[in-house]
Protein backbone atom coordinates (compact mmCIF):
# COMPACT_ATOMS: atom_id res chain seq x y z
CA UNK A 1 0.00 0.00 0.00
CA UNK A 2 3.05 2.29 0.10
CA UNK A 3 2.22 3.37 -3.45
CA UNK A 4 -0.80 5.21 -1.99
CA UNK A 5 1.06 6.84 0.87
CA UNK A 6 0.04 10.34 -0.18
CA UNK A 7 -3.68 9.44 -0.07
CA UNK A 8 -3.26 7.59 3.24
CA UNK A 9 -1.49 10.60 4.78
CA UNK A 10 -4.19 12.99 3.55
CA UNK A 11 -6.97 10.81 4.96
CA UNK A 12 -5.02 10.41 8.21
CA UNK A 13 -4.84 14.19 8.45
CA UNK A 14 -8.66 14.37 8.31
CA UNK A 15 -8.86 11.64 10.97
CA UNK A 16 -6.57 13.68 13.23
CA UNK A 17 -8.86 16.65 12.62
CA UNK A 18 -11.76 14.47 13.83
CA UNK A 19 -13.31 14.62 10.38
CA UNK A 20 -14.05 10.96 9.74
CA UNK A 21 -16.49 11.57 6.87
CA UNK A 22 -14.07 10.97 4.02
CA UNK A 23 -12.30 7.94 5.46
CA UNK A 24 -15.62 6.31 6.37
CA UNK A 25 -17.11 6.89 2.95
CA UNK A 26 -14.03 5.50 1.19
CA UNK A 27 -13.68 2.59 3.58
CA UNK A 28 -17.34 1.60 3.39
CA UNK A 29 -17.83 2.11 -0.35
CA UNK A 30 -19.48 -0.82 -2.10
CA UNK A 31 -18.59 0.33 -5.61
CA UNK A 32 -16.01 2.68 -7.18
CA UNK A 33 -18.27 5.73 -7.69
CA UNK A 34 -18.49 6.77 -4.02
CA UNK A 35 -14.69 6.43 -3.75
CA UNK A 36 -14.19 8.71 -6.75
CA UNK A 37 -16.66 11.33 -5.51
CA UNK A 38 -15.32 11.23 -1.95
CA UNK A 39 -11.71 11.52 -3.08
CA UNK A 40 -12.63 14.53 -5.18
CA UNK A 41 -14.36 16.17 -2.19
CA UNK A 42 -11.49 15.29 0.15
CA UNK A 43 -8.90 16.77 -2.21
CA UNK A 44 -10.99 19.92 -2.59
CA UNK A 45 -11.27 20.38 1.15
CA UNK A 46 -7.63 19.43 1.72
CA UNK A 47 -6.37 22.02 -0.76
CA UNK A 48 -8.37 24.72 1.01
CA UNK A 49 -7.04 23.72 4.42
CA UNK A 50 -3.49 23.40 3.19
CA UNK A 51 -3.37 26.69 1.36
CA UNK A 52 -4.52 28.63 4.39
CA UNK A 53 -2.40 26.69 6.91
CA UNK A 54 0.39 28.64 8.66
CA UNK A 55 4.03 27.62 8.24
CA UNK A 56 6.20 26.98 11.33
CA UNK A 57 9.86 27.93 11.82
CA UNK A 58 11.02 24.71 10.14
CA UNK A 59 8.98 25.54 7.06
CA UNK A 60 6.28 22.93 7.66
CA UNK A 61 2.60 23.58 7.36
CA UNK A 62 0.38 22.78 10.31
CA UNK A 63 -3.07 23.47 11.72
CA UNK A 64 -3.97 23.77 15.37
CA UNK A 65 -6.68 21.57 16.82
CA UNK A 66 -7.48 21.41 20.54
CA UNK A 67 -4.15 23.07 21.32
CA UNK A 68 -2.18 20.50 19.32
CA UNK A 69 -0.22 21.19 16.15
CA UNK A 70 -1.25 18.81 13.42
CA UNK A 71 1.17 18.69 10.48
CA UNK A 72 -0.42 19.11 7.05
CA UNK A 73 1.03 16.60 4.60
CA UNK A 74 1.58 17.22 0.91
CA UNK A 75 -1.10 16.89 -1.73
CA UNK A 76 -1.12 13.42 -3.33
CA UNK A 77 0.29 13.37 -6.83
CA UNK A 78 -1.77 13.04 -9.97
CA UNK A 79 -0.11 9.70 -10.78
CA UNK A 80 -0.92 8.32 -7.35
CA UNK A 81 -4.58 9.36 -7.57
CA UNK A 82 -4.92 7.91 -11.06
CA UNK A 83 -3.31 4.59 -10.06
CA UNK A 84 -5.48 4.40 -6.94
CA UNK A 85 -8.72 5.03 -8.85
CA UNK A 86 -7.73 2.50 -11.53
CA UNK A 87 -7.00 -0.05 -8.81
CA UNK A 88 -10.29 0.67 -7.06
CA UNK A 89 -12.14 0.11 -10.35
CA UNK A 90 -10.72 -3.41 -10.54
CA UNK A 91 -10.82 -4.19 -6.81
CA UNK A 92 -12.96 -2.19 -4.38
CA UNK A 93 -11.05 -3.83 -1.49
CA UNK A 94 -8.15 -1.45 -2.21
CA UNK A 95 -10.27 1.46 -0.96
CA UNK A 96 -11.01 -0.33 2.32
CA UNK A 97 -7.32 -1.10 2.86
CA UNK A 98 -6.30 2.52 2.26
CA UNK A 99 -8.99 3.77 4.65
CA UNK A 100 -7.95 1.22 7.26
CA UNK A 101 -4.32 2.35 7.06
CA UNK A 102 -5.42 5.95 7.46
CA UNK A 103 -7.12 5.01 10.73
CA UNK A 104 -4.01 3.28 12.10
CA UNK A 105 -1.15 4.99 13.91
CA UNK A 106 1.70 5.77 11.48
CA UNK A 107 4.68 3.46 11.90
CA UNK A 108 7.02 6.47 12.23
CA UNK A 109 6.55 10.12 13.02
CA UNK A 110 5.22 11.89 10.02
CA UNK A 111 6.50 15.32 9.26
CA UNK A 112 4.13 17.82 7.75
CA UNK A 113 4.27 19.27 4.31
CA UNK A 114 6.32 18.56 1.27
CA UNK A 115 8.63 21.50 1.77
Amino acid at each position, binding site marked *: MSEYEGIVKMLRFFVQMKNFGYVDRIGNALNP*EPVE*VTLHEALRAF*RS*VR*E*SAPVDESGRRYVEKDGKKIPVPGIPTEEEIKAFLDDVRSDIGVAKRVATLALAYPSKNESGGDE
Partner: protein
Amino acid sequence: MFLSVGVRFEANVEALNMVETAGNYSKHRRVPYLVEEDGRLKTVYVPALSGESLAHAYQEHLVREALGLGLPVCDDCRRDEFYKSMNKVHLKKKVNPIPDDPRDIEIAIVRSCVVEDVGGFLYAEKPPVRRSSAFQVSYALPVKSVALFATSEPQLHARHAQMDSSSKKGNASEQMIYYVETGTALYGFTFNLDLDAIGVSAITSEPILDEDEIKTRREAALRALFRMLSSAQFGAKLSRFFPVGGITEVAVAVTEHPFVVTSPIYDDYIARTERRLKVLEGLGENYLFAVATGEKVPEEALKEAMDYLREQGAF
Protein backbone atom coordinates in the same frame (compact mmCIF):
# COMPACT_ATOMS: atom_id res chain seq x y z
CA MET B 1 -56.23 7.73 11.50
CA PHE B 2 -53.09 7.86 9.41
CA LEU B 3 -52.20 10.50 6.88
CA SER B 4 -49.56 10.04 4.19
CA VAL B 5 -48.55 12.69 1.69
CA GLY B 6 -46.40 12.37 -1.41
CA VAL B 7 -45.01 15.71 -2.56
CA ARG B 8 -43.26 16.65 -5.77
CA PHE B 9 -41.68 20.03 -6.07
CA GLU B 10 -39.54 21.74 -8.62
CA ALA B 11 -36.65 23.71 -7.21
CA ASN B 12 -34.30 25.61 -9.44
CA VAL B 13 -31.14 27.16 -8.04
CA GLU B 14 -31.78 26.19 -4.43
CA ALA B 15 -29.43 25.93 -1.48
CA LEU B 16 -31.95 24.24 0.80
CA ASN B 17 -29.58 21.82 2.48
CA MET B 18 -25.95 22.79 2.71
CA VAL B 19 -23.40 20.56 4.39
CA GLU B 20 -19.76 21.29 5.12
CA THR B 21 -17.61 24.07 3.74
CA ALA B 22 -14.20 23.65 2.15
CA GLY B 23 -12.53 27.04 2.31
CA ASN B 24 -14.78 29.46 0.47
CA TYR B 25 -16.91 26.69 -1.01
CA SER B 26 -20.12 25.57 0.67
CA LYS B 27 -21.44 22.26 -0.54
CA HIS B 28 -24.96 21.10 -1.16
CA ARG B 29 -25.98 17.78 0.37
CA ARG B 30 -25.59 15.03 -2.19
CA VAL B 31 -26.46 11.37 -2.06
CA PRO B 32 -25.67 8.33 -4.20
CA TYR B 33 -28.62 7.36 -6.31
CA LEU B 34 -29.33 4.29 -8.39
CA VAL B 35 -30.62 5.11 -11.86
CA GLU B 36 -31.19 3.04 -14.95
CA GLU B 37 -29.53 4.08 -18.17
CA ASP B 38 -29.68 2.04 -21.37
CA GLY B 39 -30.95 -0.93 -19.40
CA ARG B 40 -28.09 -0.81 -16.90
CA LEU B 41 -28.06 0.44 -13.34
CA LYS B 42 -25.54 3.06 -12.38
CA THR B 43 -24.76 5.16 -9.32
CA VAL B 44 -24.96 8.90 -9.69
CA TYR B 45 -24.62 11.61 -7.06
CA VAL B 46 -27.62 13.90 -6.90
CA PRO B 47 -28.54 16.92 -4.78
CA ALA B 48 -30.84 16.05 -1.85
CA LEU B 49 -32.53 17.47 1.25
CA SER B 50 -32.29 15.47 4.44
CA GLY B 51 -35.37 14.32 6.32
CA GLU B 52 -33.86 16.03 9.35
CA SER B 53 -33.99 19.37 7.55
CA LEU B 54 -37.62 18.88 6.53
CA ALA B 55 -38.55 17.65 10.02
CA HIS B 56 -36.99 20.72 11.59
CA ALA B 57 -39.04 22.98 9.32
CA TYR B 58 -42.21 21.06 10.13
CA GLN B 59 -41.62 21.40 13.86
CA GLU B 60 -41.02 25.14 13.49
CA HIS B 61 -44.45 25.41 11.87
CA LEU B 62 -45.89 23.18 14.57
CA VAL B 63 -44.65 25.59 17.24
CA ARG B 64 -46.47 28.49 15.61
CA GLU B 65 -49.69 26.57 14.96
CA ALA B 66 -49.74 25.12 18.47
CA LEU B 67 -49.27 28.52 20.08
CA GLY B 68 -51.96 29.93 17.80
CA LEU B 69 -54.40 27.34 19.11
CA GLY B 70 -53.43 28.05 22.71
CA LEU B 71 -51.56 24.78 23.21
CA PRO B 72 -48.49 24.34 25.43
CA VAL B 73 -45.03 24.53 23.88
CA CYS B 74 -41.89 24.39 26.06
CA ASP B 75 -39.39 27.26 26.15
CA ASP B 76 -36.70 25.42 24.15
CA CYS B 77 -39.12 24.51 21.37
CA ARG B 78 -40.56 28.04 21.30
CA ARG B 79 -37.09 29.20 20.29
CA ASP B 80 -37.01 26.47 17.59
CA GLU B 81 -34.24 24.73 19.52
CA PHE B 82 -35.50 21.19 19.60
CA TYR B 83 -33.47 19.68 22.45
CA LYS B 84 -36.44 17.45 23.23
CA SER B 85 -35.81 17.00 26.98
CA MET B 86 -32.55 15.31 26.09
CA ASN B 87 -31.08 15.50 29.60
CA LYS B 88 -31.77 16.56 33.18
CA VAL B 89 -30.98 20.22 32.46
CA HIS B 90 -33.71 20.46 29.85
CA LEU B 91 -36.20 18.16 31.56
CA LYS B 92 -35.98 20.08 34.83
CA LYS B 93 -37.49 23.07 33.05
CA LYS B 94 -40.67 20.98 32.68
CA VAL B 95 -40.75 18.87 35.82
CA ASN B 96 -38.75 19.32 38.99
CA PRO B 97 -37.97 17.05 40.81
CA ILE B 98 -37.69 14.57 37.95
CA PRO B 99 -39.85 11.47 38.60
CA ASP B 100 -38.26 8.03 38.82
CA ASP B 101 -40.91 6.26 36.75
CA PRO B 102 -40.43 6.50 32.93
CA ARG B 103 -44.22 6.73 32.54
CA ASP B 104 -44.36 9.81 34.74
CA ILE B 105 -41.50 11.39 32.81
CA GLU B 106 -43.32 10.83 29.52
CA ILE B 107 -46.55 12.25 30.93
CA ALA B 108 -44.77 15.37 32.19
CA ILE B 109 -43.09 16.00 28.82
CA VAL B 110 -46.14 15.31 26.66
CA ARG B 111 -48.37 17.51 28.83
CA SER B 112 -46.00 20.46 28.64
CA CYS B 113 -44.98 20.41 24.98
CA VAL B 114 -46.89 19.68 21.77
CA VAL B 115 -43.68 19.46 19.71
CA GLU B 116 -42.30 16.66 21.88
CA ASP B 117 -45.68 14.96 21.86
CA VAL B 118 -45.86 14.99 18.04
CA GLY B 119 -42.14 14.97 17.21
CA GLY B 120 -41.00 12.51 19.88
CA PHE B 121 -38.02 12.80 22.23
CA LEU B 122 -35.17 10.88 23.82
CA TYR B 123 -34.43 11.53 27.47
CA ALA B 124 -30.95 10.00 27.64
CA GLU B 125 -30.50 9.76 31.41
CA LYS B 126 -31.46 7.18 34.01
CA PRO B 127 -34.08 5.94 33.40
CA PRO B 128 -33.92 6.56 29.64
CA VAL B 129 -37.28 7.44 28.09
CA ARG B 130 -37.93 7.36 24.38
CA ARG B 131 -40.95 8.46 22.43
CA SER B 132 -41.07 7.84 18.67
CA SER B 133 -42.10 10.72 16.47
CA ALA B 134 -45.74 10.64 15.33
CA PHE B 135 -44.62 12.09 12.02
CA GLN B 136 -42.13 10.63 9.58
CA VAL B 137 -40.43 12.33 6.70
CA SER B 138 -38.18 11.01 3.97
CA TYR B 139 -35.22 12.66 2.29
CA ALA B 140 -36.28 14.79 -0.68
CA LEU B 141 -34.66 13.17 -3.71
CA PRO B 142 -34.81 13.85 -7.44
CA VAL B 143 -37.58 12.08 -9.31
CA LYS B 144 -36.08 8.90 -10.80
CA SER B 145 -36.97 9.48 -14.44
CA VAL B 146 -35.28 12.87 -14.53
CA ALA B 147 -32.58 12.33 -11.90
CA LEU B 148 -29.86 12.47 -14.53
CA PHE B 149 -30.93 16.04 -15.33
CA ALA B 150 -30.49 17.15 -11.74
CA THR B 151 -27.51 19.40 -11.20
CA SER B 152 -25.47 20.77 -8.38
CA GLU B 153 -23.38 23.67 -9.52
CA PRO B 154 -21.32 26.27 -7.68
CA GLN B 155 -22.33 29.89 -8.15
CA LEU B 156 -19.81 32.63 -7.60
CA HIS B 157 -20.63 35.48 -5.24
CA ALA B 158 -18.63 38.31 -3.76
CA ARG B 159 -18.74 40.18 -0.48
CA HIS B 160 -17.36 43.69 -0.48
CA ALA B 161 -15.82 45.66 2.35
CA GLN B 162 -15.45 49.39 2.14
CA MET B 163 -11.97 50.43 3.21
CA ASP B 164 -9.54 53.13 2.25
CA SER B 165 -5.78 52.63 2.12
CA SER B 166 -5.29 53.87 5.70
CA SER B 167 -7.65 51.29 7.19
CA LYS B 168 -6.34 48.43 5.09
CA LYS B 169 -4.16 46.17 7.19
CA GLY B 170 -1.86 43.47 5.97
CA ASN B 171 -3.33 41.57 3.09
CA ALA B 172 -6.95 42.26 4.01
CA SER B 173 -8.99 42.06 0.89
CA GLU B 174 -11.57 44.58 -0.22
CA GLN B 175 -13.67 41.79 -1.59
CA MET B 176 -13.97 38.12 -0.97
CA ILE B 177 -15.28 35.64 -3.46
CA TYR B 178 -17.16 32.60 -2.33
CA TYR B 179 -19.02 29.78 -3.96
CA VAL B 180 -22.41 28.39 -3.03
CA GLU B 181 -23.25 25.06 -4.59
CA THR B 182 -26.81 25.24 -5.79
CA GLY B 183 -29.03 22.31 -6.64
CA THR B 184 -31.64 22.11 -9.36
CA ALA B 185 -34.02 19.18 -9.57
CA LEU B 186 -37.58 17.94 -9.52
CA TYR B 187 -37.72 16.53 -5.99
CA GLY B 188 -40.07 14.11 -4.32
CA PHE B 189 -40.57 13.30 -0.65
CA THR B 190 -43.02 11.50 1.60
CA PHE B 191 -44.52 12.76 4.83
CA ASN B 192 -46.54 10.57 7.20
CA LEU B 193 -48.51 11.53 10.26
CA ASP B 194 -49.93 9.01 12.71
CA LEU B 195 -52.78 10.93 14.31
CA ASP B 196 -53.52 8.09 16.72
CA ALA B 197 -50.11 8.53 18.39
CA ILE B 198 -50.72 12.14 19.41
CA GLY B 199 -51.43 12.59 23.11
CA VAL B 200 -51.13 8.86 23.71
CA SER B 201 -48.41 7.21 25.81
CA ALA B 202 -45.75 5.36 23.84
CA ILE B 203 -45.19 3.18 26.90
CA THR B 204 -48.71 2.20 27.93
CA SER B 205 -50.70 3.12 24.77
CA GLU B 206 -53.15 4.91 27.08
CA PRO B 207 -54.26 8.51 26.43
CA ILE B 208 -52.26 11.03 28.42
CA LEU B 209 -54.52 13.99 27.64
CA ASP B 210 -58.26 14.50 27.48
CA GLU B 211 -59.99 14.00 24.14
CA ASP B 212 -60.50 17.69 23.39
CA GLU B 213 -56.84 18.51 23.82
CA ILE B 214 -55.80 15.53 21.69
CA LYS B 215 -58.10 16.75 18.92
CA THR B 216 -56.73 20.28 19.10
CA ARG B 217 -53.17 18.91 18.95
CA ARG B 218 -54.07 16.86 15.89
CA GLU B 219 -55.44 19.99 14.27
CA ALA B 220 -52.20 21.84 15.03
CA ALA B 221 -50.18 18.99 13.52
CA LEU B 222 -52.25 19.09 10.32
CA ARG B 223 -52.19 22.87 10.08
CA ALA B 224 -48.40 22.82 10.44
CA LEU B 225 -48.10 20.46 7.48
CA PHE B 226 -50.48 22.58 5.45
CA ARG B 227 -48.51 25.73 6.25
CA MET B 228 -45.14 24.16 5.57
CA LEU B 229 -46.15 22.98 2.10
CA SER B 230 -48.21 26.02 1.23
CA SER B 231 -45.56 28.53 2.25
CA ALA B 232 -42.54 26.53 1.00
CA GLN B 233 -40.83 27.55 4.22
CA PHE B 234 -38.51 24.60 4.57
CA GLY B 235 -34.78 24.23 4.12
CA ALA B 236 -31.91 26.67 4.49
CA LYS B 237 -30.65 29.80 2.74
CA LEU B 238 -34.15 30.92 1.78
CA SER B 239 -33.17 34.56 2.16
CA ARG B 240 -31.03 34.59 -0.99
CA PHE B 241 -31.66 31.21 -2.60
CA PHE B 242 -35.39 30.83 -2.31
CA PRO B 243 -36.01 28.03 -4.78
CA VAL B 244 -37.44 29.08 -8.11
CA GLY B 245 -40.35 26.76 -8.79
CA GLY B 246 -42.86 25.29 -6.38
CA ILE B 247 -44.97 22.28 -5.55
CA THR B 248 -46.06 20.57 -8.74
CA GLU B 249 -47.95 17.58 -7.33
CA VAL B 250 -49.39 16.36 -4.07
CA ALA B 251 -51.06 13.03 -3.29
CA VAL B 252 -52.72 12.63 0.12
CA ALA B 253 -54.01 9.36 1.51
CA VAL B 254 -55.99 9.20 4.73
CA THR B 255 -56.55 5.71 6.10
CA GLU B 256 -57.76 4.17 9.32
CA HIS B 257 -54.46 2.37 9.90
CA PRO B 258 -50.90 3.03 8.74
CA PHE B 259 -50.59 3.21 4.97
CA VAL B 260 -47.88 5.05 3.05
CA VAL B 261 -48.35 6.47 -0.44
CA THR B 262 -46.01 5.10 -3.09
CA SER B 263 -42.94 7.31 -3.21
CA PRO B 264 -43.33 10.29 -5.55
CA ILE B 265 -39.87 9.62 -7.00
CA TYR B 266 -41.65 7.12 -9.27
CA ASP B 267 -43.67 8.49 -12.18
CA ASP B 268 -46.61 6.12 -11.64
CA TYR B 269 -46.85 6.75 -7.89
CA ILE B 270 -50.43 8.05 -8.03
CA ALA B 271 -51.80 5.12 -10.03
CA ARG B 272 -49.93 2.61 -7.86
CA THR B 273 -51.14 4.23 -4.64
CA GLU B 274 -54.71 4.14 -5.94
CA ARG B 275 -54.43 0.44 -6.77
CA ARG B 276 -52.98 -0.32 -3.36
CA LEU B 277 -55.79 1.61 -1.68
CA LYS B 278 -58.40 -0.33 -3.68
CA VAL B 279 -57.00 -3.55 -2.22
CA LEU B 280 -57.31 -2.07 1.27
CA GLU B 281 -60.89 -1.12 0.51
CA GLY B 282 -61.54 -4.74 -0.40
CA LEU B 283 -60.37 -5.64 3.09
CA GLY B 284 -62.97 -3.30 4.56
CA GLU B 285 -60.87 -0.19 5.24
CA ASN B 286 -62.23 3.25 4.40
CA TYR B 287 -59.94 5.81 2.92
CA LEU B 288 -59.67 9.15 1.21
CA PHE B 289 -57.26 9.79 -1.63
CA ALA B 290 -56.89 13.38 -2.80
CA VAL B 291 -54.58 14.31 -5.61
CA ALA B 292 -53.44 17.66 -6.95
CA THR B 293 -51.62 17.24 -10.23
CA GLY B 294 -52.75 19.93 -12.60
CA GLU B 295 -56.21 21.41 -12.26
CA LYS B 296 -56.27 21.17 -8.51
CA VAL B 297 -53.79 23.16 -6.44
CA PRO B 298 -51.94 21.44 -3.56
CA GLU B 299 -53.84 23.42 -0.92
CA GLU B 300 -57.15 22.05 -2.25
CA ALA B 301 -55.99 18.46 -1.88
CA LEU B 302 -54.66 19.11 1.62
CA LYS B 303 -57.87 20.84 2.65
CA GLU B 304 -59.91 17.95 1.28
CA ALA B 305 -57.94 15.62 3.54
CA MET B 306 -58.43 17.90 6.54
CA ASP B 307 -62.18 18.15 5.89
CA TYR B 308 -62.39 14.36 5.66
CA LEU B 309 -60.51 13.96 8.94
CA ARG B 310 -62.84 16.47 10.60
CA GLU B 311 -65.87 14.52 9.33
CA GLN B 312 -64.35 11.34 10.72
CA GLY B 313 -64.06 13.03 14.10
CA ALA B 314 -60.26 13.03 14.16
CA PHE B 315 -60.27 16.66 15.28
